Each structure stands twice: as structure tokens, then as C-alpha cells.
């Protein structure tokens, strides 16, 4: 079968064609639904496709246009929503058996904003259970394949969203990033992903993994598309106490005016060394050279506390998750196991959690329970929070010298499904470069910077900006993206094998 050329359009192009009447939103939605139909059996990006809902939304956009109403900048553009955001009337599983069949009675703020902007929600995407993982292998509903090589992981936890983008099932997607779950999947699938400043995008209705680290953000195939989506979902929400009450940084304007001319770009010495794949380092070094050619000044930085970031993360995130996931007790919603009249409520809760959670989730709950228990708190959780302070201080010092920092997004390209499944420590290393940003709360982006010569798989370049300077990511990202496209003669994603 032949795919509609519509699916290859960017979100910006699609929106323009819908606005001008060249395409209808229904046509666009149908093209993507057909693509999902054709390839998702192989990719497994979606856990739930809301065919009827998507078409109804698309029809509403077309009616609005027919009536001459003004359309938003992404009206009618299809999107794949990570299955961690609540959607009223549509199942939300967070990739877990414990929420199988749960239909939320309310919409997340992000969901609401997408709907209000007339973005068409195609369905819910696969993810590591409760966003715990870097490969999407921890989904209770089976792994997702990387469209570049279906035997490899698409990154995680947001592997469904990145795979949907890379396989043209949607031009836009939403992810969440607790330790790299937007950026690392973007890196290994040759797409763009942004973790906004903590507090930039509401967490209301985003099922919590680690409250002080989680941040929802945009995923797309181009920097401009990510910016357009960023602007739709960001902004103050009174329902989230940690939401920043300030104007959204001018991300779209920045994405339209990419430049690094005269910018100071930092390279942190802690972001290389043992564990980094040669091809990743090679593409990263080339990116630094490119930045210099584009007019940036490169500054070497030393951020010694970054060496402790992974350790601090694997205490803080499990601690918070052990508490956040306590509510899944089989009493009010979701799975209930063992309720055969012989077990007490307490036993039913334990049996439900045993049956409903996968091994990685249990591992982290146990770890967090340990780190918070009396006698261990100071040594573990307390120290981890001190590390957090030191990392913030390192970032603060760095940003006195530079405007942005760059690094590889992840130390290796996509690894084969199953390779690290039984080795949690090896899996955790995938987030080595992304975690410091979550701990400090500032913004970061991953965008493609080429294929690693040894395996021909995408490599991600990470750009890190200070708190609430998310626009710098787009300014730099757009410049780098344009320079690479010029150098390669086409966007990197076009080198992905067709499915």
C-alpha cells in the first residue's frame, strides 16, 4: 500500500494547509489513522487509538474553518499522547496492569489545552510502566520497536511517542521527562524532544512518578514543531502548585530565528569518558565544531557534582515514587486482586500491588521505601538532596559563563531489546547526561546530530538552558538543525528505513 504524502509533512506545514483549505483536518487525521493501521502492528507505539474521538475533533476543526472562525496555530494537527496523561472517557494505563481498564473522569491540564487548541489526539502511546525505564521494555503491554531498527529500543520511558514520530504515525507527540524520558527517546529515534523548565508545563493530570522531577514536554520531528506545541501546552496552571506563574518564554519566535552568533556555549568535561560510544562522541564533537563555525564561542566547564547526579537521582526518584504509587491499592480504581472473601483489605492491597506492578516498579518502590526509612533517611535521601543543591550550584556557576550547555543526549545509540533488561544498573546509565537537568529544574532539548558510523543509528545532541530560558534551546536548536539539514541535504529522519 502507498502512504499518503500528508504524513511526511511537518506540523507547521499541516496546520498551514488546513488553515488555507488545501487540506481538511479530517483528511489529515484519516491519513494518520491509516498509517497507524498499516505500521503500528510492527512498531507498537500506541496502547489505545481513539479513532472516533480523533475524527470528531477533526470534523469540529473543519466546521470551525467553514464558519470562518480563527484557527489556532496547530488546529487539526494530529498528536500522539503519552499514556501518562489522564483523558476523560479514554483509558489511561501508564503502561501498567494496575490501571488496566481505568477510564479517568477528568482531563489533565495538558489534555485540556491540546483540546482547546484543536490539536487532534489520535490516541495514547506506550511507555515504560509509570515512566520507569529507558527502553519502553518495562511496559506491561509489551515493548515498542525503534523505527530505525525494530529489534532495538525506541528509548524510554516515552518510547511510544518517539516511535510514533519516527514512523510518521503522528507529527507531534507529548512526553514526560523525569530523568530523560523525553530526550533520550528523541535521541535514539532521530527526533526532537524538549524537557521544559520544571514548572513550565502543568503536571495536573500527569500521573506522578517523581513529583519534584517530572515534567511534561513537546516531541516532534522539527524544532519549530516542538516550539509550536510547547506554546500550546505551557503556561501557569492554578491546579499545580509547582507551576510557574510567569509568561511562557518566547519559544516559537526563537525557533523561527535560529542563531548562535555570539553565543557562549559550554561543554562540560563530566559529560564524556567511560561508557560513551565512540560514534556518539564523534558526532558530538562535530556538533561542537559546527557551533563554532556558526559563530558560537565554546567554553570548557567543570561541574564536579554531576558525577553524583545519577546516584542522587536513584534515591530521590524512587523515594518519591514509593509514596506517589501508594494510592494504587485496589480499593478505589484499577485492578483488584485476591478479593475472594477470604482476604482482608490489607491483604487485597498487597496482592493487588504484587500482581499489578512489574519488576522495575517494585524494585523502585522497595528502593524508595528503604531510602526513606528511619535510620537511612539522612544518609540517603537527605544526602541526595544535598547533591541536588550542589548540582544547582554547578549549573548556576556554569550559566554565569555560558548561555547554553551542550552534551551528547545519551551515551550510546539505541541498544537491542532485551540487552539490558536484567541489568538495572546498565539501564540506568542511559540517563547519565539527562539527569542533572531534572535535578536542577532547568530546560533541555535533544535534537538529531547524525548517525553513529559504527551502527548507522541516530545520535542526539543535548542543549541545556537556564531556568525559564527555554527559548534559548529553540534559538540554538533551530540554528543547528538548519545547518545540519543544509550539510546533509535533507532532515536526518528521511534516512530512516521505510516500514
Amino acid at each position, binding site marked *: 500500500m502507498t502512504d499518503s504524502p500528508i504524513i511526511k509533512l511537518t506540523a507547521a506545514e499541516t496546520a498551514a494547509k488546513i488553515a488555507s483549505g488545501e487540506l481538511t483536518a479530517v483528511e489529515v487525521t484519516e491519513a494518520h489513522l491509516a498509517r497507524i493501521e498499516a505500521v503500528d502492528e510492527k512498531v507498537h507505539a500506541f496502547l489505545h487509538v481513539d479513532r472516533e474521538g480523533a475524527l470528531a475533533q477533526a470534523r469540529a476543526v473543519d466546521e470551525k474553518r467553514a464558519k470562518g472562525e480563527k484557527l489556532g496555530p496547530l488546529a487539526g494537527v494530529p498528536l500522539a499522547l503519552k499514556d501518562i496523561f489522564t483523558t476523560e472517557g479514554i483509558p489511561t494505563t501508564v503502561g501498567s496492569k494496575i490501571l488496566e481498564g481505568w477510564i479517568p473522569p*477528568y482531563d489533565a491540564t495538558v489534555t485540556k489545552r491540546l483540546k482547546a487548541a484543536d490539536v487532534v489526539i489520535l490516541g495514547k502511546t506506550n511507555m515504560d510502566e509509570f515512566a520507569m525505564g529507558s527502553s519502553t521494555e518495562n511496559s506491561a503491554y509489551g515493548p515498542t520497536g525503534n523505527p530505525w531498527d525494530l529489534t532495538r529500543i525506541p528509548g524510554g520511558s516515552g518510547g511510544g511517542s518517539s516511535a510514533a514520530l519516527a514512523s510518521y504515525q503522528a507529527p507531534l507527540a507529548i512526553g514526560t521527562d523525569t530523568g530523560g524520558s523525553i530526550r533520550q527517546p528523541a535521541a535514539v529515534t532521530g527526533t526532537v524532544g524538549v524537557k521544559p523548565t520544571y514548572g513550565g508545563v502543568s503536571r*495536573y493530570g500527569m500521573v*506522578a512518578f517523581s*513529583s519534584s522531577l517530572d515534567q511534561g514536554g513537546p516531541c516532534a520531528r522539527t524544532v519549530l514543531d516542538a516550539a509550536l506545541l510547547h506554546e500550546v501546552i505551557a503556561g501557569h496552571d*492554578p491546579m*499545580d502548585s509547582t507551576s510557574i506563574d510567569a509568561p511562557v518564554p518566547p519559544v516559537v519566535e526563537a525557533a523561527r530565528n535560529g542563531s548562535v552568533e555570539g553565543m557562549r556555549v559550554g561543554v562540560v568535561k563530566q559529560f564524556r569518558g567511560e561508557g560513551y560510544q565512540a560514534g556518539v562522541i564523534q558526532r558530538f564533537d562535530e556538533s561542537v565544531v559546527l557551533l563554532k563555525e556558526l559563530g558560537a564561542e565554546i567554553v570548557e566547564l567543570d561541574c564536579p557534582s554531576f558525577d553524583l547526579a545519577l546516584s542522587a537521582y536513584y534515591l530521590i526518584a524512587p523515594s518519591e515514587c514509593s*509514596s506517589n504509587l501508594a494510592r494504587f491499592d485496589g480499593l478505589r480504581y484499577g485492578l483488584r486482586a485476591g478479593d475472594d472473601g477470604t482476604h482482608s483489605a490489607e491483604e487485597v492491597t498487597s496482592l493487588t500491588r504484587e500482581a499489578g506492578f512489574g519488576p522495575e516498579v517494585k524494585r523502585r518502590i522497595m528502593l524508595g521505601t528503604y531510602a*526513606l526509612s*528511619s535510620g537511612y533517611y539522612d544518609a540517603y535521601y537527605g544526602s541526595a538532596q544535598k547533591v541536588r543543591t550542589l548540582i544547582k550550584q554547578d549549573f548556576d556557576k556554569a550559566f554565569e559563563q555560558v548561555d547554553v550547555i551542550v552534551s551528547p543526549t545519551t551515551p550510546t545509540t539505541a541498544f537491542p531489546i532485551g540487552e539490558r533488561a536484567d541489568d538495572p544498573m546498565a539501564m540506568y546509565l542511559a540517563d547519565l547526561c539527562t539527569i542533572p537537568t531534572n535535578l536542577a529544574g532547568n530546560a533541555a532539548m535533544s535534537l538529531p546530530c547524525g548517525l553513529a558510523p559504527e551502527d548507522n543509528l541516530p545520535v542526539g545532541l543535548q542543549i541545556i538552558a537556564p531556568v525559564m530560558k527555554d527559548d534559548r534551546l529553540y534559538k540554538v536548536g533551530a540554528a543547528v538543525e538548519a545547518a545540519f539539514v543544509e550539510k546533509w541535504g535533507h532532515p536526518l529522519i528521511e534516512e530512516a528505513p521505510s516500514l
Partner: protein
Amino acid sequence: MTTTTDLVSYEEALASYDPVMGLEVHVELGTKTKMFCGCSTALGQGANTQTCPVCLGLPGALPVVNATGVESAIKIGLALNCEIAEWCRFARKNYFYPDMPKNFQTSQYDEPIAFNGYLDVQLEDGETFRVEIERAHMEEDTGKSTHVGGATGRIHGASHSLLDYNRAGIPLIEIVTKPIEGAGERAPEVAKAYVRELREVIKALGVSEARMEMGQMRCDVNLSLRPHGTEKFGTRSETKNVNSLRSVERAARFEIQRHAAVLSGGGTIIQETRHFHEDTGSTTSGRVKEEAEDYRYFPEPDLVPVAPSREWVEKLRAVLPELPLVRRNRLREEWGVSATDMQAILNAGALEPIVATIEAGADAASARKWWMGELARSANESGKALDELAITPQQVARVTELVAKGDLNDKLARQVIEGVLAGEGTPDEVVDKRGLKVVSDEGALTAAVDEAIAGNPAIADKIRGGKVAAAGALVGAVMKATRGQADAARVKELILQKLGVSEG
């Protein structure tokens, strides 16, 4: 299920041991909405009609702090002479229980909003005792479970339970005392007086109605004994959810007697929670704290710190009402009553009605007389609280005004009040409808006196002969004839005048 507990007499217990108490009081605030969501706190609504994603703990939902809840906490802290934290956080107290939707309670741990205060309380004989306050912190209430299938609706033997989360998330302030030492035999009385005074403070602040019978205020009584002359505290028991002032006193007393029996029998007290039983006045063993509870407290990451500005705190301090004890002492002076009388007024719930009656124009003595007399009796008979009677302080004041003007005497006034309570209208309407007016028309009165003298010649003669005391019988006859509406003193005057004797 009957369990017998060995007790020693109270006197015997106090002869050997010195009680140390710690009181933890939970107060449900009277805010319109819950602590962390916009659900209503109204009572008596259908099950699960006042819940939302936040207070049901649905995946993804997030809390937002109720500003009035924080303000109430600061007011309570100030009224309890506490320091108010410049910066404090909420913390999660992690434990599983079906009535708690998130399986953690959003509370405060090592950073309470108010700490280090005291409350002076007055005992029955007027003696003042200072109770030191450790802290007051903000937290949330749990839902309500109904146990089904057991014989008594109790948890024991129930086949299953039903949960209503309307109460889940209602703001609570937990107020914890420092160890209360030195109360000796008066410890139970101090406990009761403290809870009562605290309730008065809470009510005066207007942050809660603090009705114990409705669970808006609940007390946990921690108690331990130590041999006289020793410093170290003994092992304590924690009697949970004691829900009346009387019960607070009884629970403390019972635990003193029980602990003493265990200790003097060479036993050791088990650190455990206990339940108080209203019917028997005794406590029974609850949950033994086997493995020390590990609540794994940590700062609530979904809420940001609360840093009350000094301006805000001072603004609240400036508008703090006069505190109840200070006020009672002032009123005592003004009214010229004893400390014990004031305690009686307080115990009867008559303080506010009396104050309101005085404010409406009555003199203090009359206001006190009616509320502590006729009205207290009526309330008692109908099983109501004074403020639930169908008469307003303004109406009582009007009655006293009519008495002062001589329009009513006490006997008529009682009938007026009776009429008002029976719903016959305002005092003036009752006076009109029942025709209750002192007869001051001298003509009518003289005729009635003449009639009485004529009708009772023998008595009249006695009076003429100097037996002035016999006049009472004629006065009675006149009062009867005028249906009580005459001024008795004036009647007596007229009789003596007519019969040509002077009172001598």
C-alpha cells in the same frame, strides 16, 4: 465482649505515682472548602458527593493549599502564644489505610507552622494552670468507613466496609502539648480544663465551631506514671479519639488507676493505643505498636513551602479577639461574680447568651438570673443547649426591661418567657395576647383591695389588731383576683393604709 481491668483506687494511685500527660487535639477547621481542593466541607451531604480527583487521590491529581486554612492555623498559633514559622513545609506521612485515598497523609513533620506556646487554663476553683504547647500543625482528615456485617457495626467481625470520602481532605489543625507535669491529682481536671479552654479559644477565633459531639474536635490522651520523686517518664498509653470533655477527664482518671495497678503489681505498661468507652468509662487495648511505626516522612514535593510574611502574621495578631480566659476574668470583675460562679456559667454554656443579653440592654444580674435560672431549667428539661432555645438574648433583654419598668413582675416575666419559648411571639406580643401586665391603675387596685377586705373580715380584724403578717393572706387574695398582675408591694401598702396600720 467484657474485659475486666485491674484498677487501684484513685487515691492509692496518686499516693504512689505522679502522672504525666500529653494531649493531642485535632480540630476540623470551618473553612468552606477542603485543605487541598475546592470540594465543599458541608456536613450531612450524600455519600461521595463532595469528592474530586484531588481528595479521591486519583492518579495525576495535585493538591493546592487553602489560604484560609493557613490563616486559621496562624490565628490558632497566635492565640496559643506560639511562634509562627517564617518558613515551613508540608510533609507526607506514609502509611496505608483504606480511609486515606493517597495512602499518605499530607501533614507537617519537623517544620510545624506554629510552635512553642502555652495556654493558661482555669480549674473549677479558679486556680490557673499553664499548659505548654509544643506545636500546632496543618494536616487533612480521612474519609469515613462504615463496617458492614458485624453484629454491632463495629470493625470487629465485619464482613466488609464501605467508604465515603466526603470528609477526606477537610483541614485539620493538630495541637500538641508538651508533657504536662506537676498537675498531680488534678491531672484529669487539667486535661478537661485544657480541652475546654482550647475549644473556647477556637470558637472565639471563629475558625471552627469545635463541636466535640460532631467530631469537629477530638482528643488523644497520652498518659504515663512515674514514682514520686523520679524524673524519668514512664511508658505511656495513648487513648485515641476521646470525644467529650467529661470523657477526657474520665479517660485520664481511668488510665491513672490502670497504670498504677499494673505498676504496683510489678508489671510493665505496654506502649499502645487504647480506646475509650463512654458507657463504662474504661479503656481497652487497641493496636500495639509492634515494629515502631515508620511513616517515612519527607517534604511534600507537590506543595511549595509556606512562608508567612511577618506583615501578614502581625496583621492577624492585631485583629485577634480578646482571648476567652482574659475575657472571662474581665467579665467576672464587671459582673461581680466569683470564679466558681463563672465556671458554672461556662459549664452551662450561658456565657455568650448572657453577654449578648447585656449587650442588648439588660443589667448583668438580671441577665445572669434568667439564663442560669428559668432558661437553664427549660433547656435542661427539653434536652437542648441554651443557644438552641427559641428565645433570643434580645428578647430576654426586653423581658428584663419590662420588669425594670415595673410593667412585669418576676412571676409575669416567667410567663412571658414561657410564652416566647412556646412560640407565641415576641415578649410584647405574649404580654398582649396573654394580657400579662402589672395592674397599676390605682382605682382598679383599690376596688380589689376593698373587695378582699370585705370578703375576709376576720383577717382584716387581725390586721387591725396589729398582726401585720396576716396581710399576706389579703395580698394573696388581691393577686388572685387580678390574676397576678398587681404589684404585690403596692397591694400590701394599700391594705395597711385602708386598715389604718403602719408597717412599724
